[in-house]
């Protein structure tokens, strides 16, 4: 296996794949190079130390990680149900699960308000009885992030479950293991790379989330203003230097997490 893939890697790649792949890299990298070229390097330290930036960064990390945790706890079981169980309306559920990916995030945020806002389907009675309100709090940011990002985890894990060799599950079941034991001891470890890949995608999407967050949770420094919101408002105010510096910071933070993860779990 190892020597085979080493031989394969040494062979010359077909020129068409090489050419198109190069175009793809250039297309993806170009905007980042342009961003770097415009970065105000000298003022970077001062900008990054501003309270508005540290507040936004702290909140972004906190809420994106919390959303990833929520997606793992809720999304993994759903992915398993979709991949392993037959039930009426399964294809409808699968389509609904993907909706947040195609919906413009601002619309998603408005829909969240209609559901969980102060006058929302569910939010109204909760607010009337307990005074609890999701919007205008970090909880609201986490809910918006989870709504938008969880589908990435679900489809990744479901695909992993579907492509998995099921003979191990069957063997364990034949030997008397319950479905729950099979899930815990066989399925979960075998599908772990997909879960990690899905969690990383989900986290990255949550970290960059803007539309649903600003619409559902609002924008207040220290409470609901995440990095993308801070970047957007810096741009609005005409402070392009600050906007670029903040974007760069966001990119560096995500790279610091994504690169080691990719090497460790997805193969470099």
């Amino acid at each position, binding site marked *: 296996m190892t020597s085979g893939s080493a031989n394969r890697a040494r062979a010359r790649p077909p020129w068409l794949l090489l050419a198109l792949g190069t175009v793809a890299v250039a297309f993806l990298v170009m905007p980042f190079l342009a961003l770097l070229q415009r970065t105000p390097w000298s003022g970077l330290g001062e900008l990054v130390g501003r309270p508005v930036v540290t507040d936004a960064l702290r909140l972004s990390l906190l809420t994106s990680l919390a959303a990833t945790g929520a997606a793992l706890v809720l999304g993994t079981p759903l992915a398993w149900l979709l991949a392993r169980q037959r039930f009426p309306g399964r294809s409808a559920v699968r389509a609904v699960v993907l909706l947040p*990916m195609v919906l413009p995030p601002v619309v998603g945020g408005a829909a969240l308000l209609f559901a969980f*806002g102060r*006058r929302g389907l569910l939010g109204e009675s909760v607010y009337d009885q307990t005074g609890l309100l999701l*919007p205008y709090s970090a909880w609201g940011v986490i809910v918006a992030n989870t709504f938008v990002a969880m589908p990435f985890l679900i489809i990744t894990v479901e695909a992993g479950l579907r492509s998995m060799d099921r003979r191990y599950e069957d063997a364990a079941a034949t030997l008397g293991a319950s479905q729950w034991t099979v899930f815990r001891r066989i399925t979960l470890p075998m599908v772990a790379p997909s879960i990690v890949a899905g969690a990383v995608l989900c986290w990255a999407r949550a970290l960059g989330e*803007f539309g649903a967050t*600003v619409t559902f949770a609002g924008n207040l420094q220290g409470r609901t203003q995440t990095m993308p919101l801070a970047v*957007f408002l810096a741009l*609005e105010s005409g402070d*392009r230097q600050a906007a670029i510096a903040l974007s760069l910071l966001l990119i560096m933070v995500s790279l610091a997490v994504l690169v080691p993860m990719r090497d460790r779990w997805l193969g470099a």
Partner: protein
Amino acid sequence: MKLKLALILATAVLLAGCSDTGGGAGPATPTGATPAGGTLTVFAAASLTDAFTQLGDRFKAAHPGVTVEFNFAASSALREQIIGGAPADVFASANESNMTQVVDAGLATGPTPFVTNVLQIAVPSDNPGQVAGLSDFGKAELLIGLCAEEVPCGQFGLEALAKAGVTPSIDTNEPDVRSLLTKVENGDLDAGIVYHTDVLAAGDAVRGIEIPAGQNVVATYPIVALSGSDHADLATAFVGYVRSPAGQRVLESFGFGPA
């Protein structure tokens, strides 16, 4: 297995990019390319949406063969797009500073004020917070929204609160006036400070509470035909029409005051 994962990853990332339309700085330019023959492209502040749509229809009726395309967004977003090279013929801003930046960038000369707007408190039609004036904006138990101070309506709102001597207890700083108004309309906020014209446009969904002249702020809107326009004559004609008595009457019907 690895290849499959990479494929999934790539597909998902691609989808993410496609669906992420909310993060941009407003809509892209409506023309995309250099405007053809008789197409006039007008970049106008979001608060002008209804009034300018009607002005555009009348202008088209008076100039057969001419099409008018609008890009409505926060003045600051429009300023960024214009400085970034967007093919606009006319720029109408909700405040002076965004216009000044476009002029300073050498993209326009001699903007003129064409209309004014005053602030009003917007509350949901049933006024659940029993808001009566700016002093209620200091109450922590109410859900209070303003525009972010990075956009004109936010600066004006803070100015009015300062004049009234109120330290607001803010729950959200919305990125533009329309999103603030939507939250008030839906009852997700108890009160917000918006333009008088926005309250009029919202109809019955929102109640407007006057701010006394001593605490109010008058926003002056400037308009200009941009120097880089391919339709300089049309752009000048449109600006002239907006400033004409007929154009001013249309603007007045939407709640704007004379400049």
